[in-house]
């Protein structure tokens, strides 16, 4: 799949939360094909502390407005600079990068597909959910956050499927972690997709393995190049070290060697 090194224009940058912004990018010609799970490497200008590009997963692609959405969690100087971008600013991207979530090529659109996201890990779940909806599936989202104000883009998720939530303080949905949600008692899912903090993904993997459900995780290993050249972002798998940027970020849990 061809990768592009391109300047895109900021069409808007919306502060959804004190620690998150939604960067919408566009260009004059149609954006290339992108798949859920893929990411971009975005260059950060005017931040001396930021040397490397920042890998950010694709949150959504709006084909009508020709927009690429990036949900950015403000963690350090680099992401803070990205949060300060204004409409009309230019940003340089290398994209689309990495593999993508597997999607059933099935006539059976009643398959129960569970998408579990925590924190900024909800970002790729929106794009995946939108794609599944387009293909005729009815995805089930299980989204977790600390408090209700940290649950982002809920109105978007509701357009594409059923949404269940958990918050650590019980301010919205069930109290606790996503992996304690009562919906998981049903155990009748055909596939689980997940992205979020490592402890959360470990719990999800544990659940999926116990009841024998196929599951894919999207990894967030620290990386430099994003295109499989530097070999820094490796994950140890049953096939040896793989580059998360090229052979991931989506990995089937059968390949992982996590101590569960």
């Amino acid at each position, binding site marked *: 799949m061809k990768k592009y*090194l391109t300047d895109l224009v900021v069409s808007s940058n919306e502060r959804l939360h004190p620690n998150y912004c939604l960067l919408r990018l566009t260009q004059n010609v149609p954006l290339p094909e992108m798949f859920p799970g893929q990411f971009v490497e975005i260059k950060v200008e005017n931040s001396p502390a930021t*040397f490397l590009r920042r890998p950010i997963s694709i949150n959504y692609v709006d084909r009508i407005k020709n927009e690429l959405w990036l949900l950015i969690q403000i963690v350090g100087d680099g992401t803070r600079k990205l949060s300060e971008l204004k409409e009309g600013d230019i940003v340089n991207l290398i994209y689309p990068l990495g593999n993508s979530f597997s999607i059933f090529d099935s006539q059976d659109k009643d398959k129960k597909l569970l998408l579990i996201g925590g924190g900024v890990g909800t970002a790729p779940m929106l794009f995946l959910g939108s794609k599944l909806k387009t293909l005729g599936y009815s995805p089930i989202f299980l989204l977790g956050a600390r408090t209700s104000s940290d649950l982002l883009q809920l109105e978007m998720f509701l357009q594409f499927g059923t949404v269940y939530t958990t918050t650590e303080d019980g301010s919205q949905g069930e109290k606790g972690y996503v992996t304690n949600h009562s919906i998981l008692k049903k155990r009748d899912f055909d596939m689980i997709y997940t992205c979020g903090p490592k402890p959360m993904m470990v719990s999800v993997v544990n659940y999926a393995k116990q009841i024998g459900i196929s599951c894919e995780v999207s990894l967030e*290993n620290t990386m*430099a*190049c994003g*295109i499989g*050249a*530097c070999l820094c972002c490796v994950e*140890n798998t049953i096939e040896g*070290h793989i580059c998360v940027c090229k052979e991931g970020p989506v990995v089937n849990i059968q390949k992982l060697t996590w101590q569960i």
Partner: protein
Amino acid sequence: MANLNVNIGNLQLKNPVMTASGTFGYGLEFSDFFDISKIGGIFVKGTTIHHREGNFYPRMAETPSGMLNAVGLQNKGVDYFISDIYPQIKDIDTNMIVNVSGSTIEDYIACAEKVNDLPQIPAIELNISCPNVKKGGMAFGTNCQSAAEVVAAVRKVYHKTLIVKLSPNVTDITEIARSVESAGADAVSLINTLLGMAIDAEKRKPILSTITGGLSGPCVKPVALRMVWQTAKAVKIPVIGLGGISNWKDAIEFILAGATAIQIGTYNFIDPTISVKVVDGINEYLDRHSFASVKDLIGVLECN
């Protein structure tokens, strides 16, 4: 348009800009972004006689104007390179150079012998300076005697252009350079990464799985430039300069300091097209200053 050709031993380069081992994959990873045959050469990922898994994750820490890595020569071994990679890269119209590494002298010899048989690989870069492996690597390159031994041993079995990549983690890099020159090296390339370290203060733990790693990027450029200048004065063989080059001006500085050619490393991660931009920048500089050939610029730094 100035003449950009330079020679490294018997190696003819269409221009002095090449990409550094470990930062450019096998070249193919960058072919979506530009015509990779437009640069003078590509040093492919460090290759060893046997498959190596490399070090555990985490292997990278970002630093101000640079990064530390501790990859540890992950590669599938020279036989895999010959069977699976070589057929894909052999017809790329530039110099495809294999970086050869090892844990023992025997490993270096065995790997170099196999690469010697590949008609479209015109040179090797002997890596005696990797700081991220427990055995071999930098251990060979930080001592004049062991550096000379491994180079002499490889020289006996390798009949094309032999470049030796030097470590900056030494008291006097010119002594090592002279040793490998005497042992039969056709050229030296410098610098490999500087041994460094990163700590996570909150967790009170090292960031890298190996604790220490190799520092690269624009932050090392002044050190690299100084070492290239010193080495170019100390040896008669060509010097290939690298270390933190991120634009054409950096490249010109290395050539003025005495480098016949340069390599671009870490900056390929920031701008995958930087190498070809540097070729264009050098050309414009030569035209602007009325130099007919880039060779006229090598080592002409005026220190008075």
